[in-house]
């Protein structure tokens, strides 16, 4: 009996923790665009910037202004030079905003920018 209870507790804790993680990821209201031929991500350290449909930036899940994002990227690039930036932009974000972000990333000296998308469906 006791081993079964142990297992059940383990599973319970597992599901509780994964739920916390899922919620954190979904806390920024971003619906990624869909691209069928996108590559599978390689495991690398990357700095996540979210950009919602209205053009608001989020560093991780914290809302930020354009200047804050620029300052954040500068600091990140200084600390981890070959910086990989992962942009999770909403599918409705106007491309003006995308271009603005690309220019900012270029300005701080980053050479690696990744657009986050969903694969099939």
């Amino acid at each position, binding site marked *: 009996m006791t081993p079964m*209870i142990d297992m*059940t*507790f383990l*599973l*319970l804790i597992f*599901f*509780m923790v*994964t*739920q916390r993680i*899922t919620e954190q*990821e*979904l806390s920024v209201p971003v619906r*990624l*665009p*869909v*691209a*069928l*031929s*996108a*590559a*599978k*991500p*390689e495991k690398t350290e990357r700095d996540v910037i979210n950009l919602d449909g209205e053009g608001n930036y989020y560093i991780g899940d914290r809302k930020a202004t354009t200047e804050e994002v620029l300052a954040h990227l500068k600091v990140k690039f200084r600390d981890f030079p070959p910086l990989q930036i*992962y942009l*999770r*932009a*909403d*599918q*409705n*974000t*106007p*491309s*003006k905003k*995308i*271009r603005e972000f*690309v*220019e900012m*990333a*270029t*300005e701080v*000296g*980053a*050479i*690696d*920018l*990744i*657009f*986050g*998308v*969903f*694969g099939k469906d």
Partner: protein
Amino acid sequence: MTPMIDMVFLLLVFFMVAAKPVVPERDIPMGLPGQVAQEEVVDIPDEARVIIEPNGQIVLNEQQLDTPNGTSLPELRAVLDRFRLSAENAKSEALVTLAPHDTVPHQRLVDVLNACAEAGIKGVTLAGGGDE
């Protein structure tokens, strides 16, 4: 003991049901020039300029391709395919410049990037604004 196990089971079932399936995300990597954004227009041979109009219509060499709404872009893909082949024959790299209008949604940009990837074109750049 039994009521506790009952409770734990209940919680377990709750969290199992509440756990949402995580949809895996994928990458579209872009190489940046690594310097301050360029102001002047640079002429590069073997460069295709893909313009995306505000309604999503794709224009390449003053020729309208595909419909403004469809996600898959077979015509654009075919043209880019030929473009890549001719660039390969001329031993130069096929370069595509994307010039989306300011209001074009990101999904449309990704559609075109997707078509470029399908056509095997690696050199894609994003044009600065102000050309319309």
